[in-house]
């Protein structure tokens, strides 16, 4: 901070100085100019007269004018003399000059004001900056002082730390010393103890000699008569044989103890093995089989075969009876593996659960556990209610059945009869309807056939008529070009339409209509157009009739004919175009 400040401060100051200098120059320059030209830029009103009199008098007016002219020309004004007439003043130019000078003066005054303003502003800026500078300097001082304080504290702490370290070391040394003292004392004590014990032993020996060697008559046992041994046997002599037997017996005791312990361990082992085996089975059954295998493959190929082996082993239960190392290793290894797998699985499940929990807040499709539980509770309640209802119903039924069997039977019979009658009636109605339908259908087919025949005749007729028309038209074409065939065409077609319409409205099914359209679509445009309209009408009118026959294919064909008719109109237009020129 301090460094930065020390650098920045001079920069600021230099800047401001530059500005200051610049402004002062600017400020000074007009005054010097004025002093050059007018000696004093803005004299007071009192001095004005004397001043003017000092500069220009009656005598030196010429020189003054010349001087002014020179000055003005040097300042870039036009000469105040009339160029053509030597020493004659050009009044206009003088006035102009004066005007311009006055304007200049005004401008300068304004500039001066501005400059002064700027100066003031800059002065205040300067003050501000100086204040800032002072403040920063103060801060710097403060920081420096703080640093010094902190350094001092640091130094103190360090020295304290050093002292503490020293103390610790001293304490450690002390502890070490004390330990040494303790151990040295202990050894000394032990040594002394030994010495004393030796003395004591010597004394004891001496005492023993004294006490034992002296035929102490007091040391004796007075007994009325010796009693028999508890086991009834006589005491055995001490021989090498007995010694060997003792050894033998001792080892027997030890052996039996070890055998017993081994038996216990065997039992324990067997139980543990059983538990392990069961655990293994349970783990295998618990682990999802489809998950188990790919994971194992990913781990290493060998494990899979191991697992298979293990499963094979499971079958041979007596394998476990062998308590050899290999079996043990296999067992523990497989258990460990499976356990790892189970752990992974459980961890994954845990992760899923946790993710589910976290996701439940965001995702709407994941049902939260509480909702789920609530729902299941509700459902369970419903089930309960339903069950109860069923039960009550059953009870009621049972009651009914049990209370009056005969009446219920009778009632049931009545109901059955009634229903049967009703059904029969319905059946009859249905049959009638069916018959009617059949009749209608037959009439329809007949009508269709008739229509087909009529249509054929009509077509023949029409073909004849068209031929005639065509022939006549080709003959007329050469005679008069003004004859508008389209209109004739249209008219004729209209006429045809009317004819066809009347027939179609009567009894013409579209299926029959379609046949000729597809057979000869480009034969004649008129034919097509009339066909289209005909089908249009048929489409409008037909559905009412066909609902009864229930044939959907025909309606489908109807729409198809619509499309065909569209193409027909297009063709028709093309024909018109050709014929227009």
């Amino acid at each position, binding site marked *: 901070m301090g460094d930065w400040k020390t650098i920045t401060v001079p920069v600021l100051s230099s800047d401001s100085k530059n500005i200051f200098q610049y402004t002062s120059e600017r400020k000074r320059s007009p005054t010097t100019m004025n002093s050059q030209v007018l000696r004093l830029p803005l004299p007071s009103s009192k001095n004005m007269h004397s001043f003017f009199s000092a500069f220009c008098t009656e005598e030196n007016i010429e020189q003054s004018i010349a001087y002014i002219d020179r000055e003005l020309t040097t300042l870039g004004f036009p000469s105040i003399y009339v160029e053509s007439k030597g020493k004659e003043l050009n009044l206009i130019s003088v006035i102009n000059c004066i005007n311009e000078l006055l304007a200049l003066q005004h401008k300068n005054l304004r500039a001066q004001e501005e400059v002064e303003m700027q100066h003031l502003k800059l002065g205040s800026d300067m003050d501000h900056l100086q204040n800032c500078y002072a403040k920063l300097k103060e801060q710097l001082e403060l920081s420096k002082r703080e640093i010094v304080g902190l350094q001092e504290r640091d130094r103190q702490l360090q020295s304290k730390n050093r002292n503490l370290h020293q103390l610790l070391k001293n304490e450690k040394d002390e502890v070490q010393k004390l330990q040494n003292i303790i151990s040295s004392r202990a050894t000394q004590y032990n040594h002394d103890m030994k010495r004393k014990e030796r003395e004591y032993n010597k004394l004891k020996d001496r*005492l023993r000699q004294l006490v034992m060697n002296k035929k102490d008559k007091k*040391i004796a046992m007075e*007994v009325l008569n010796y009693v028999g041994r508890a086991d009834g046997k006589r005491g055995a002599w*001490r021989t090498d044989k007995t010694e060997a037997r003792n050894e033998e017996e001792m080892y027997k005791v030890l052996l039996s103890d070890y055998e017993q312990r081994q038996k216990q361990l065997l039992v324990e082992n067997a139980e543990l093995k059983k538990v392990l085996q069961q655990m293994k089975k349970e783990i295998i059954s618990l682990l999802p089989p489809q998950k188990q295998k790919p994971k194992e493959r990913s781990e290493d190929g060998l494990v899979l075969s191991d697992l298979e082996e293990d499963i094979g082993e499971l079958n041979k239960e007596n394998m476990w009876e062998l308590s050899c190392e290999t079996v043990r290793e296999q067992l523990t290894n497989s258990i460990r593996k499976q356990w790892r797998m189970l752990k992974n699985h459980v961890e994954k499940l845990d992760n899923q659960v946790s993710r589910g929990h976290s996701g439940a807040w965001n995702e709407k499709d994941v049902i939260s556990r509480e909702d789920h539980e609530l729902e299941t509770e509700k459902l369970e309640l419903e089930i309960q209610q339903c069950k109860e209802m069923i039960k009550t119903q059953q009870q009621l039924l049972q009651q009914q059945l049990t209370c009056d069997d005969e009446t219920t039977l009778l009632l049931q019979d009545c109901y059955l009869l009634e229903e049967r009658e009703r059904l029969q009636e319905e059946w009859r109605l249905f049959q009638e309807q069916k018959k009617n339908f059949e009749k209608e259908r037959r009439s329809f087919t007949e009508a269709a056939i008739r229509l087909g025949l009529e249509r054929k005749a009509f077509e023949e007729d029409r073909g004849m008529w068209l031929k005639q028309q065509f022939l006549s038209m080709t003959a007329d074409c050469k005679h008069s070009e003004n004859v508008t065939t389209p209109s004739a065409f249209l008219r004729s077609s209209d006429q045809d339409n009317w004819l066809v319409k009347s027939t179609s409205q009567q009894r013409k099914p579209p299926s029959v209509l379609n046949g000729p359209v597809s057979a000869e679509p480009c034969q004649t445009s008129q034919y097509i157009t009339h066909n289209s309209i005909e089908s249009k009408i048929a489409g409008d009118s037909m559905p009412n009739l066909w609902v009864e026959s229930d044939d959907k294919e025909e309606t489908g064909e109807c729409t198809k004919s619509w499309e065909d008719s569209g193409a027909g109109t297009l063709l028709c237009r093309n024909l018109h175009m050709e014929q227009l020129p």
Partner: protein
Amino acid sequence: MNFSELFELSGLLGRFSPDGKCLALCVQHSLVVRDVSSLQVRQLYTCLDKIQYIEWSSDSLFILCAMYKRGIVQVWSLEQPDWHCKIDEGSAGLVASCWSPDGRHILNTTEFHLRITVWSLCTKSVSYIKYPKACQQGVVFTKDGRYMAVAERRDCKDFISIFVCSNWQLLRHFDTETQDLFGIEWAPNGCVLAAWDSCLEYKVLLYSLDGRLLSSYRAYEWPLGIKSVAWSPSSQFLAIGSFDEKVRILNHVTWKKITEFEHPATIASKKTIVYKEVEKSPSVETERLSFPPTKALASSLFSTQSKYEISQVPVSLQYIKPVADRANPKVGVGMLAFSADNCFLATKNDSIPNAVWVWDIRRLKLLVVLEQLCPIQGFQWDPRQPRLALCTGTSRVFLWSPAGCVAVQVPGEGDFQIVSLSWHSSGDSMVLLSKDNCCVCYLEREEVK
């Protein structure tokens, strides 16, 4: 629960015979043998001096009475009242006397532990065992009575000798890695011998019957070490109580520590039940008072009664800060005993003298703390079932079993301060001993579930 009348007694010498038929009681010079069922005097023997120690032979046929001051032992036969035997150790003196497991030999330790004399009642033969070590438990027999282990000290080194009891032949003799051997104890199965160092050093050594070192255990180095040791009846566990107020339990397979039982002064665990003995001031039920007062009522008025209450944990027990500059400070686990079924361990921390701690060995957890009003004088497990009897130097006897605990006032006038107790082998009765009296306490079988 029934109590017999009080019998005179001296030196806390009241013992049931191993077969459970008789009760031997000493009163100064005389030894009274009573029938347990009828409590009638069966035999009366008079000794030469004040009896300081008595012991039944294993077949309950003989009783030895030791008079250490005189250096003599007198043996009496129960079957032949006129049979007598007197063993005089003469100027060698006598500090300890005991039966051999066969009940036909007496082992006398002379003063200054010069030797152990083995006197036989069958033959004239006398055997000597030299250099016995003067320590807390220097001579121990296996439970089956076949072997005896003796701690010895020769040339400033500790040794252990194993003898065959049938003919006193030396079987094994080995030195131990101890500074100052303090005690030895056979495992109940008779195959492992535990030997521990004096309290200056925490060290337990485990030897096989054939003298091999099986293992050694050391919990810490500098502070005072072992205070008490106990084998579990199954020989599975070895409990070691030490001056650091902890019990460490070793297992018999690896001989490593299984667990550590601490004895803090505050019990915070919610799973522990703390039974607190509280004094019940005699109820002032004025309507029941009659004039003149009956004898029983009068006695009940003047004797305070007590009962157990269950304290709410955390409980802080009365802790006595041990005096630091005294030898044998009253701190650490000084008493511990396994129940007969191996399931429980009772301990007492000497710096909390009023409490008995019962640990569940199956769960290795603290089960119950019994907080008494007076310092515990002694406790003993019922030999047949998990039932602990304890006495606190008052006229009350306390029983704990997993079903609960009970405080029973011994009826009768006068001061009867029970300082010791011992169970009958059947677990149906026990003898309660005070300084001058004793009584037999009969427990009904139905009472204990």
